[in-house]
């Protein structure tokens, strides 16, 4: 277990004594446990809302929070520690709901179109990968991103959390497009190397 604390992070809530979110989700699925769900909500809803605001959902930010948390409640029983950590699982739900809301807002007619869930599939079955690997990957990712230079992290955050295109990131940071692409590419290369070193 690592005791190193993130130095570059401006938020300090991601500590080692974080609750066992997986266990709380299980209580939600099995007993409709309101207290457990409240704990999950209190931690994740403000983050989902921040994500929504960053993505430009000013009026619909709370809608996204409600949609995601409804999905978390409904699908709590499908969560499996062997597939992802709870924050990764919630990230994928949030991403998909965001896309879904945008698609619905843009739709003019009630056409049959391919479902968001088909395009961004969230695994629900435990296949062959063992659970320890995924959970340690999670911790590993956290330490790995701490090793990235701040300028690369800023570019990654803007892509992941503000839904910015590379062009928009360049404009906002007032740097050439090539530099943005370079930073992203470098950060991905570093992460890939770190991931590959680690893979069993």
């Amino acid at each position, binding site marked *: 277990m690592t005791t190193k604390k993130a130095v570059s992070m401006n*938020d300090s*809530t*991601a500590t080692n004594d974080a609750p066992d979110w997986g266990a709380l989700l299980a209580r*939600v*699925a*099995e007993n409709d446990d*309101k207290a457990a769900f409240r704990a999950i909500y209190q931690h994740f*809803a*403000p*983050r*989902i*809302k*921040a994500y929504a605001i*960053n993505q430009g959902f000013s009026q619909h*930010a*709370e809608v996204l*929070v*409600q949609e995601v*948390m*409804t999905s978390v*409640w*409904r699908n709590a*029983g*499908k969560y499996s520690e062997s597939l*992802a*950590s709870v*924050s*990764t*699982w919630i*990230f*994928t739900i*949030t*991403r*998909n709901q965001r*896309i879904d809301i945008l698609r619905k807002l843009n739709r003019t007619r009630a*056409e049959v*179109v*391919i479902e968001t869930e*088909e*395009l*961004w*599939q969230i*695994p629900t*079955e435990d*296949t062959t990968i063992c659970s320890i690997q995924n959970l340690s990957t*999670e911790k590993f*990712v*956290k330490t790995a*991103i701490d090793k990235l230079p701040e300028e690369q992290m800023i570019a*990654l955050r803007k892509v*992941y*959390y503000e*839904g910015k295109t590379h062009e928009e990131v360049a404009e906002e940071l007032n740097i050439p497009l090539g530099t943005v*692409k370079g930073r992203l*590419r470098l950060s*991905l290369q570093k*992460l*890939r190397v770190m*991931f590959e070193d680690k*893979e069993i």
Partner: protein
Amino acid sequence: MSGYHPDDMTLMNYAAGSCTIPESLAVAMHLCFCHDCRQHVKNLNHLGGALLETIKPASTDDDAFESLMASLEPHAQSEIAQVKMEPTPSEKITQHFTNPLLRYLPTSLADLPWQRQTKEISKYDLTSLINVKGFQVALQKINAGAKVPKHTHKGFEYTVILSGGFSDELGVYHEGDFIARDASHKHSPTALQNEDCICLTVLNAPLKFTGWYRVLNPFMAWS
């Protein structure tokens, strides 16, 4: 295992949910074939999860939790349904990633009502299923050994091979391969000899045929 993959940037945009629907279809289709890219997307999802933890939280409405609770159904009902839907062991094995088009195709690839483009090339259009302005999406079938007329791209083209294979000036491609081409390429794919080639093509601008074939431009497209 396929040999041509989406680049890191494309996979990241997919995992971040910042690519377009047609692009995500091409990536998702490749993921059906490629264990390595599935693994990488999983890592990129972990990155998303880790970033979600480091985001600066925003304040939520005071009564939001209680009003949400009031709208939620207890689990008992859906739980029973879930047990019934327990997949059989064979489904579990193939459930890594399912073909995203499966539910939308009327029949198997071989039996699709292909629309003939030339004697040797036919397509099954998916543009309306994807329904994103500026994109043409289709399944394309090239008879074994047939050649697609030389064309250039105005925007970009993603191709994922679903069966068979083809070659062009830059390489030989097989089932599962993900090929990205942009405006700088002028190519003429030729299906491999022994088998019809079926692929998914995603195109973000109309194609331009070069040479004599330009007369076909308004009527025929690679996608």
